[in-house]
């Protein structure tokens, strides 16, 4: 059943980052053959859900330095400043390139690109395509990628393992879902763009596919993950479904109200309420601070009790139907559909929801990981520009900037490498055997996937939520070890080959367990509070000890170990984060 194919550059992941990288490879060296593996059709990737917009300096009164500063202070001085500078500089060009490829960006009446304000940004610099920015970006990238004959697609293939030759990554093993066939896809360079891991938590805006597969693949192959403790909660998710109400709703002027109809953010050092939005203030503060304020409101008994836990209200009524239809049609569509309410006339119940992982595969400015031949970009990677808290609308742009950089770097790397050897086939055969023995042909397993998954998610929410403590994290570490052991006893109902989605679920669970462990270890070791990582037992930021990136690696016995790497500071020495002033 084993098949082998070979390419020059292999992309794992066909979301915003993956497709951008694929095109970059094709444009850097048209002679290279590029392959894109994706476990869903590329245009189904999670980038499609992104709503609000993508940041890039374009306004005349804006400057690159200001975007840098907002990003660095927003990330609580954990971002690498050289990375941020490169990012901010290339951002407008990448967004412009997308314009040339057909992205339907919103426009000013004179035909120029329109920008909107966004949380934590001092200037208006967020490009948007109504409130379906990610959707339009992804479809533009996907449709543009169809133009390049050099790009081969492996749609609905699930990557299960990286192929290694003497410490160098030379491809991957993937299962063709439709048939269950195992395929070895060799390549001179591999780029991982598999997106985030929000599904490790129970209540998330993330799609079903965001299970951290690429992080786990890399981690198992021996490269470290970086800053995994920083998990972003978005302050406005719809209860029960976790569907996101975009930050653009606040940027356009929405209010956050507690149960007394009071704009409570003014009590949390985020400025004084004004009728119209003020940048870097109140509702346009950064996500970590807004989510933390929610927890405090809850503790004070000032939230509203809903059928799915406490909520606060997002009020858009004063914006009027016309503005809501023009700028936030998708928000209205989602509210009508899933909450049966019309934001034109009613308050939207919202609560913080897991949204994004700042951490990821440790890479340099060109997406290169410490493993030869392995690159990473997008949410799966950590360059890092997001530090301890990502600013809204930076990550779509990140996918483009670092997707392109990784693509170019991988293309150059691949151009000078010898082709991978045939002996990699043995590794693939071994992997095929593992899949059969552990899952497909195995009988008598007693654990159900859904049970383990639910226990893991609950553990993560309870111990690694908006606020954490040493005690809760310690407990979680133990619990995850237990779940890892129980995973060995997993049993599938489905033993067939064609489209075995249960096999996929099992493999995804394995990825999530590894990623969850890395998150907990990093969170446990970081004894300070910074950005999205808030320890109740260490409430202050500690630059002395922790102005550093956590690097978590897997030990021989499978358990994680954490070390630290310095943060690159160029022009913005650490300072206090100030909003609303």
């Amino acid at each position: 059943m084993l098949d082998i194919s070979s390419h020059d550059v292999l992309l794992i992941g066909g979301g915003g980052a993956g497709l951008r990288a694929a095109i970059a490879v094709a444009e850097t060296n048209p002679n290279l053959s590029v392959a894109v593996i994706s476990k869903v059709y590329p245009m189904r990737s999670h980038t499609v859900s992104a709503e609000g917009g993508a940041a890039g300096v374009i306004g005349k009164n804006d400057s690159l330095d200001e975007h840098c500063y907002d990003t660095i202070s927003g990330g609580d001085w954990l971002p690498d400043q050289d990375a941020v500078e490169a990012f901010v500089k290339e951002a407008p060009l990448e967004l412009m390139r997308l314009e040339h490829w057909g992205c339907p960006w919103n426009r000013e009446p004179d035909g120029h690109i329109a920008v909107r304000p966004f949380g934590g940004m001092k200037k208006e610099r967020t490009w948007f395509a109504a409130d379906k920015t990610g959707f339009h970006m992804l479809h533009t990238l996907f449709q543009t990628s169809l133009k390049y004959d050099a790009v081969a697609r492996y749609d609905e293939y699930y990557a299960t393992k990286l192929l290694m030759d003497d410490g160098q990554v030379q491809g991957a093993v993937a299962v063709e879902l439709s048939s269950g066939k195992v395929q070895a896809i060799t390549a001179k360079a591999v780029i991982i763009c598999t997106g985030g891991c929000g599904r490790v938590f129970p209540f998330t805006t993330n799609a079903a596919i965001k299970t951290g597969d690429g992080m786990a693949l890399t981690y198992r192959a021996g490269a470290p993950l970086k800053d995994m403790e920083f998990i972003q909660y978005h302050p406005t998710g719809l209860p029960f479904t976790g569907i996101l109400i975009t930050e653009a709703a606040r940027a356009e002027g929405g209010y956050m109200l507690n149960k007394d109809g009071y704009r409570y953010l003014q009590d949390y050092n985020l400025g004084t309420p004004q009728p119209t939005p003020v940048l870097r203030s109140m509702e346009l503060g950064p996500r970590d601070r807004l989510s933390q304020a929610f927890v405090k409101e809850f503790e004070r008994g000032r939230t509203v009790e809903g059928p799915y836990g406490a909520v606060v209200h997002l009020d858009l009524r004063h914006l009027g139907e016309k503005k809501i239809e023009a700028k936030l049609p998708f928000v209205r569509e989602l509210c009508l559909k899933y909450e049966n309410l019309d934001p034109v006339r009613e308050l939207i119940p919202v609560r913080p929801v897991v949204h994004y992982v700042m951490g990821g595969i440790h890479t340099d400015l060109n997406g290169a990981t410490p493993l030869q031949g392995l690159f990473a970009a997008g949410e799966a990677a950590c360059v890092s520009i997001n530090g301890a808290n990502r600013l809204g609308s930076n990550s779509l742009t990140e996918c483009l900037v670092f997707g392109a950089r990784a693509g170019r770097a991988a293309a150059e790397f691949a151009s000078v490498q010898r082709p991978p050897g045939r002996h990699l086939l043995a590794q693939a055969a071994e992997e095929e055997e593992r899949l059969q023995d552990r899952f497909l042909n195995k009988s008598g397993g007693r654990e159900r996937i859904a049970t383990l998954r639910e226990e893991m998610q609950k553990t993560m929410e309870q111990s690694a939520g908006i606020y954490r403590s040493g005690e809760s994290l310690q407990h979680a570490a133990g619990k995850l070890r237990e779940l890892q052991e129980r995973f060995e006893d997993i049993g599938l109902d489905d033993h067939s080959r064609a489209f075995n989605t249960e096999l996929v679920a099992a493999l995804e669970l394995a990825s999530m367990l590894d990623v969850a462990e890395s998150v907990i270890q990093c969170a446990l070791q970081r004894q300070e509070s910074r950005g999205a990582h808030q320890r109740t037992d260490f409430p202050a930021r500690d630059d002395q000890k922790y102005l550093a990136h956590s690097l978590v690696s897997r030990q021989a016995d499978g358990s994680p170990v954490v070390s630290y790497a310095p943060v690159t500071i160029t022009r913005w020495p650490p300072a206090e984060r100030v909003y609303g002033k």
Partner: protein
Amino acid sequence: MAEQIAVEVTRFSPERDKTPSIQSFDVPLRKEWVVLDALNYIKDKVDGSLSFRWSCRMGVCGSCGMMVNGEPKLTCATFLTDYAPGPVRIEPLKNFPVMRDLIVEINDFLGKLSKVKPWIIRQKEKPVTEGEYLQTPEQLDTYKQFSMCINCLLCYAACPVYGLDPMFSGPAALALAQRYNMDSRDEGKEERMDILSQHDGIWGCTFVGECTQVCPKHVDPAGAIQQYKLTATQEWFKSFIMPKGAK
């Protein structure tokens, strides 16, 4: 015990079965549950082998299209209670080959999509450093609706012409072609016309109009195709009036 609803789903395994069959499951009937939640309940709690596609569960990734009581629907945007007291029948999208349970083969569509060249075609690219191609909100508005397609393929399941003749390019691919044709930045109308005005292209459509009715994103492929017929006809006559060298 909570209220229940009977959910009848299509089962098919190419390895075991000659033809698909129907299996019924009892699922709790919850107010906030969409059809997809019911399927996930079955997969998680009852039978892990039930296979179907889904991802975003917010109606934008386009993977979860299925027939719900005979109508093509996004199962993540279709509420279970609308079908109470049941039973509700979930089948794979019509007009496509069934690969497994509720999963259909859609590579055919991807091939058709590539064929209509859904990308901006320019005679001459301008460097990104020179800024954007200007496009007024009005110009944006002429094609915006057709750019909203999530490739969910509900329209193909609703179009009898596609059902009868799988060679037909079909509503979404044609609407997306029209999306680029109408884009003020594009210069590829000519190139696309050669492909689209073949028999399998726009002329295959007999304006059944169901594609537009079932489209969850209000793309209106039926309108796109008829408008395109009009343009194609104009072009056809133009090529008569100015035969040689006409652009």
